[in-house]
């Protein structure tokens, strides 16, 4: 059942909220060891909430909420009041927020039920969900492989149907790449469409929270719930939440396909699946046009300079003074800082903090950060030119399918190149939908993305719906086979 179908069944009294919640909690208990996707299961809170939500549904209060009664999993970098929010880091182990993120308030008001917090790369820094304190998330399609990252837990739980929906965050591809690796659907919204209030910041100018689900309608319904103006986030620029229709009409839509995304480095199976997805859309009346994506060679460099610069500052508050980890070995103030941060952060986080501190330091700012911001402006500009020509762009998400756990962990540069197709979307603040479009010979899922102009989510959802109306990749569920 889809998330929307679950809610409808509850409203039709074919199911109770408690039945649904207990069913999922049972599955999580039995199967979480397979993927290691849940860091924390909010068992008691979920059962209590189930009763509350049932009462609200019974009085008709939630009639207009298509996701009322639907369970959801939350990436562990989104603040949940009363539920530990650790960002999968030793630094924040045991930290329980005293306030909810904007999106959490919204989904609770919509009658959704939080089942727990999901594993990820530490502080969302990584593309494989291997760097968290509680170990790697395993891909439900092949548990020897990564689930992608950083929202690996969010994609894995949806792929193995441990929850019907999840929230992830996307700073350089962190929703899209795990969705592609796990064969699920997701949306990275336009920057400013979903409030970042309560999402533990990695790179403030790039981070967005977005939905991950089994199909585009579930994701669109969740995006309607979590989007909208928040006075507490100055970068929240949308005036009202998205309202999506049910159109599948893509006739005459112009979609650009960047030729140079398919030239070198990309696996043939991935390439063919994405090209075939483009043909599927073409068959429905879309006009496909090839072009060369400018600036592609600079995307990863620019992204890492900006993301790490912001991260070095955003993560400075984890200093052992107010909350979180403090080294027991520290005696002086300088030691509190140095030892707490040395011991509390993992290797990749420290690598990025150092990189970010370096590019902002006196004498290097102009050469790195300032230059990167200039290139970012050019990338943004190039995208706006493209959207004068195209309604959207179709592209691969990653060059390969999910790789083996441990395969790239010691090669940060190779890991960073994972973001080649995704990071420019964040640099330009654009929305993108990711959809499953096939499997490789090993049976691993392949995904593609549709990138739209700012606030063109409705168009993206229409095209995605059109694609899923004639394909069934998104209906396949992972078996969790151990290979």
């Amino acid at each position, binding site marked *: 059942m889809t998330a929307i179908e679950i809610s409808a069944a509850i409203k039709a009294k074919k199911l109770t909220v408690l039945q649904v919640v207990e069913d999922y909690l049972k599955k999580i208990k039995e199967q979480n060891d397979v993927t290691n996707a849940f860091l924390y299961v909010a068992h008691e809170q979920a059962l209590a909430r189930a009763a509350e939500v049932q009462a609200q549904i019974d009085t008709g209060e939630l009639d207009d909420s298509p996701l009322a009664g639907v369970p959801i999993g939350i990436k562990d970098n989104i603040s949940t009041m009363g539920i530990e929010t650790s*960002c999968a880091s030793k630094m924040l182990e045991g930290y329980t927020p005293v306030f909810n993120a904007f999106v959490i308030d919204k989904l609770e008001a919509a009658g959704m039920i939080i089942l727990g917090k999901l594993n990820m790369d530490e502080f969302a820094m990584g593309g494989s969900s291997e760097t968290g304190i509680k170990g790697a998330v395993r891909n439900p399609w092949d548990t020897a492989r990564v689930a992608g990252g950083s929202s690996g837990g969010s994609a894995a739980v949806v792929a193995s149907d441990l929850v019907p929906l999840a929230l992830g965050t996307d700073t350089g591809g962190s929703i899209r790449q795990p969705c592609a690796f796990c064969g699920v659907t997701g949306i990275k919204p336009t920057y400013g469409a979903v409030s*970042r209030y*309560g*999402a533990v910041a990695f790179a403030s100018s790039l981070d967005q929270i977005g939905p991950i689900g089994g199909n585009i309608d579930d994701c669109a319904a969740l995006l309607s719930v979590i989007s909208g103006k928040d006075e507490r986030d*100055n970068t929240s620029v949308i005036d009202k939440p998205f309202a999506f229709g049910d159109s599948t009409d893509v006739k005459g839509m112009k979609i650009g396909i960047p030729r140079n995304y398919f030239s070198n480095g990309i696996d043939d199976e991935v390439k063919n699946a994405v090209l075939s997805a483009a043909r599927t859309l073409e068959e429905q009346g879309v006009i496909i046009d090839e072009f060369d994506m400018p600036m592609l060679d600079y995307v990863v460099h620019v992204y890492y300079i900006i993301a790490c*610069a912001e991260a070095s*500052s955003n993560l400075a*508050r984890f200093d052992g003074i107010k909350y979180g980890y403090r080294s027991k070995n520290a005696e002086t103030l300088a030691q509190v800082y140095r030892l707490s941060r040395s011991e509390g952060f993992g290797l990749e986080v420290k690598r990025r903090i150092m990189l970010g501190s370096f590019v902002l330091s006196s004498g290097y700012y102009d050469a790195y950060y300032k230059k990167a911001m200039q290139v970012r402006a050019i990338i943004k500009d190039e995208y706006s030119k493209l959207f004068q020509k195209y309604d959207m762009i179709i592209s691969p998400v990653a060059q390969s399918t999910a790789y083996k756990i441990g395969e790239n962990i010691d090669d940060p540069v190779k890991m960073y190149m994972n973001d080649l197709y995704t990071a420019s979307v964040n640099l330009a603040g654009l929305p993108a939908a990711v959809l499953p479009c096939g499997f490789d010979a090993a049976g691993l899922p392949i995904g593609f993305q549709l990138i739209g102009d700012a606030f063109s989510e409705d168009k993206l959802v229409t095209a995605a719906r059109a694609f899923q109306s004639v394909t069934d990749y998104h209906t396949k569920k992972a078996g969790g086979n151990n290979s």
Partner: protein
Amino acid sequence: MKGYEVVMGLEVHAELSTKTKIFCACANKFGGAPNTHVCPVCTAMPGALPVFNRRVLEYAVRLGLALNCDITRCSKFDRKNYFYPDLPAAYQISQLYAPICKNGCMEIALEDGGTKTIGIHQIHMEADAGKLIHDPANEQTYVDYNRSCVPLLEIVSEPDFSSAAQVIAYLTKLRETLLYLGICDCKMQEGSIRADVNLSVRRPGEALGVRAEMKNLNSFKAIARAIEYEAARQIEVLEKGGTLVQETRRWDDNKGRSYPMRSKENANDYRYFPEPDLLPMQIDDQWIEGIRGSLPELAHEKRARYIKDFGLSEFEAGIITAHKNISDLFEEIARQSGQALESARLVTGEIMRMMNNTGILPEDLSLDAGKLAYLVKLVIEGKINRNSYKDALNAVFTRNVQPADYVKEKGYIIVNDTNAVAQAIEAVIAENPNAVTDYKSGIQKAFGFLMGQVMQKLKGAGNPGAVKAALTEVLGS
């Protein structure tokens, strides 16, 4: 000065008196139990985001316009990164690349009667840090975030000062301006205005010397002493053939000397970069003109007007405009009494005396202008005499009495009723035949005695002139 000249620039931090903090809705109040005016934003909880209080922008523009600055139309915030326990985010939201005000100036009066123009390099907005509290008893340090995110303006001057007197003149006028604009309460003892002095020395005509930045200057007196000390210290180093290092020095007012805090070599690299959580501020001309139009009259403008329109002396106008509370009080008494000169006499006389005696500071002065205006009117109209007036003023100062009731109760209202005067005279003549006889036989002091008796009968409320005339007439007949 052994042929050296001193070159100084000032960095003044002023805490703004907005109702709420700069980036959250917490109360902006001095004091309070530690960590009671705090929220996830000003304690930098993970995921909390700043929201800019537009009132701070308005206050910054007010000061910028008053100091003849250019207002930046697209102003931005930047992060200044450094670790210290009073800074919960480990970065301060400040302005480096596009400060709100630039290129201003202020004219100060010199001791020789001339004037000097001091350049204002820039004014920028930033968030204050919290406060560390050291407990010597158990050698623990605690942190209070009540002050975290209190709005600050940093006013950076050009290096245009050459003497402590100029620095004090500038600070006095800046303080006055902040008060008149109503944007800062300027309580130095509460730290709501703080000044750092950058000082270097050079031989006239030479390039600028190596500067030291002096911190922890908590009073005008401390500033003057620290300048004198630092100039002498630098000259001494140079005279002995030594070289100066660029450094930050902390003034110890008790010991009367300064100590190095950090040198340029171990200075923080603040790694400034644009604050990504706050969008650039777009400021339009119309909004600026609206603020310009609503700017209050400043002290120097008031002084000129008092002299021109009310005929006050420069001295009186100076005393009255030295603090906004005083000039507000003066204007209100003058308005309600219609007696500007007498009101000025009251403010510069009795009120100043009362403040000196009681130690009340201008910022804490709270007197009821209506009550004082009532008394001013009575004394000007001759309804009470000067002694009664002083006594009634004092009763208002100390007990905040209702002056109308008070003067009545005390019988201070001068009786002009000729009947009452005639009756009193008649009675006194009847009771004191000997004195009358003495007077008629030419003993002049008997008149004074009779006069006193009449005034006593009138309970001091007789108009002495009228009584004297009437008594002379009766005795003469």
